[in-house]
């Protein structure tokens, strides 16, 4: 935490410390909340008697809204100077969305809740990234993002455990009440962060910005290459866990659910353990090495899933997913900040990368499902390993080092 005027948002040491802690806990609670809006919604709506087509439509509506909002929401966050206010409103909308699911799961309201959630996810992510950039400055952003990712993974794990227990012991509806309740601590963490929005802090941040035009930012070759790499990554990665989980239910007996839970939790544990280290490496050794490490996990995972039959070993392969997830989670906002951090369009660039990732994930899920249907699971995994290898090659050959020069 440097005392240079361009970092820390101009805050004093004590305020800076509480703001840092606030950001940690914000990441944790937001990850908690987001766990409730995942695949669990399909489970809940099924028990409400929704048909599969209707559920698919509602979920697609959320996905499409999120993808369409990535870039506009990023621009919106760029345009507002009070990022913590944006975060607060986004979290309140999450709360409303969760309550709608709990109280009134009729189609119109569910569509509304899905769209609200999709849009708010696209404003909250950039707001958190922007607050991280304001707190850490460009030279220690890697460390800050490493902390973000660590607390987010802890939040994911705790959230899954809490919500899973709630759904199992109480009811599916109670899970959404719990999700809404979890927004309260999230809002509380924003209080120290709101000092970043004070006029004095904002002046500091503005002074260090060198505004560029939107076209200039989006046409930046480093941004475009990274977006292409990220798209290929998600193309390979998006369907690996779902496909492996389905394969687990085919092979494992009564413990299949437990093994799938382990498949979800193990990467999160790895992320929590590794992220500060990776953030530090990104700062000291450079971005490329962290990127390559993460991308290399993809073809490795795909190949192992394709050849391994033993369900317990399949769970262990998910440890590699932890390394990849750490790398990806830190690198996306980091490279965006490297490329566009001082241009005044940081969140737009982040939204653009998010949009590319969304396309990759959607295409990847469809492609993997199609290959698995026609040629079987091992072929699908091998195909995704091949795409992962291509992505790694692209990073190796084309992705430049984006770490800012010291001084």
């Amino acid at each position, binding site marked *: 935490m440097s005392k240079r005027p361009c970092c820390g948002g101009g805050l004093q040491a004590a305020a800076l410390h509480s703001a840092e802690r606030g950001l940690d806990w914000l990441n944790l609670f937001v990850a908690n909340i987001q766990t409730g809006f995942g695949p669990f919604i399909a489970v809940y709506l099924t028990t409400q008697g929704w048909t*599969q087509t209707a559920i698919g439509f509602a979920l697609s509506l959320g996905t499409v809204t999120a993808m369409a909002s990535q870039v506009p929401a990023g621009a919106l966050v760029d345009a507002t100077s*009070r990022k913590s206010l944006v975060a607060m409103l986004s979290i309140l909308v999450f709360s409303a969305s969760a309550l709608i699911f709990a109280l009134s799961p009729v189609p119109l309201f569910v569509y509304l809740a899905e769209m609200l959630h999709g849009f708010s996810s696209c404003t909250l992510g950039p707001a958190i990234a922007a607050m991280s950039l304001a707190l850490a400055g460009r030279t220690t952003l890697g460390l800050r993002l490493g902390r973000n990712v660590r607390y987010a993974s802890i939040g994911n794990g705790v959230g899954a455990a809490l919500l899973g227990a709630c759904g199992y012991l109480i009811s599916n509806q109670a899970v959404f009440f719990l999700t809404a309740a979890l927004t309260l601590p999230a809002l509380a963490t924003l209080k120290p962060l709101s000092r970043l929005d004070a006029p004095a802090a904002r002046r500091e941040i503005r002074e260090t910005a060198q505004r560029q035009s939107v076209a200039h930012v989006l046409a930046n070759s480093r941004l475009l290459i990274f977006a292409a790499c990220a798209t290929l990554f998600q193309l390979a990665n998006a369907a690996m866990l779902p496909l492996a989980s389905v394969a687990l239910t085919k092979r494992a007996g009564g413990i299949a659910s437990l093994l799938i839970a382990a498949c979800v939790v193990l990467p999160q544990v790895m992320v929590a353990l590794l992220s500060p280290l990776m953030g530090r490496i990104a700062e000291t050794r450079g971005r490329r090495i962290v990127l390559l490490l993460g991308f290399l996990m993809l073809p490795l995972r795909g190949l192992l899933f394709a050849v391994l039959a033993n369900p317990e070993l399949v769970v262990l392969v998910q440890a590699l997913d932890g390394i990849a997830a750490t790398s990806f989670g830190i690198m996306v906002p980091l490279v965006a900040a490297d490329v566009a951090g001082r241009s005044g369009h940081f969140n737009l660039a982040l939204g653009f990368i998010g949009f590319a990732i969304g396309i990759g994930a959607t295409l990847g899920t469809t492609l993997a499902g199609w290959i698995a*249907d026609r040629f079987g699971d091992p072929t699908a995994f091998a195909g995704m390993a091949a795409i992962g290898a291509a992505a790694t090659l692209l990073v190796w050959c084309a992705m430049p080092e984006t770490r800012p020069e010291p001084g």
Partner: protein
Amino acid sequence: MTRGRANPPHGVVLGMLLTLWVVNAWAADAPAPASPAAAPAAAAPAPPPQQPAAQPSPPENLESLAPDAAVAILGKKVRDASGHDMGPVVDVVVSGDGHPVAAVIDFGGFLGVGTRKIAVDWSLLQFKPVDRDAPVVLALDRAMVQAAPEYKPTVQLPVQIVGPPPAAKDPGPTDQK
């Protein structure tokens, strides 16, 4: 954005939530849009929608169903022969002459990750309307079903459903269109 406004508009958000609650209470009076698709062989008409005054009277050919005589099964749990939870019923496959042929179960997974749809022959199911939570019982064990192919209906290809286990001469899975 705006300056000088220190606190977010709590009142606006609370007003929105209250409005949603009121609208929900109003919507609950209207007929439910999602009606159960599955029905036992006898047609079961829905209860008459609540009508305001000076509207036509309900149809004359109403039948009534005792609460324990029949149960809606979409979204309800299926138990296997040993009592384990298999997942909810998500669809019913009906033949042209009106007889249910198979039930589709959303099987397995954790918190929604890793679930798979499996179709099982209707003759393998028993129904217990008394148990509102898990009214469907499958005559097979989970282990016999877990490796079944996923149920994916297409226009041209026949779908695979899990049939009765090979007793003396019956083949295993039955192909149905």
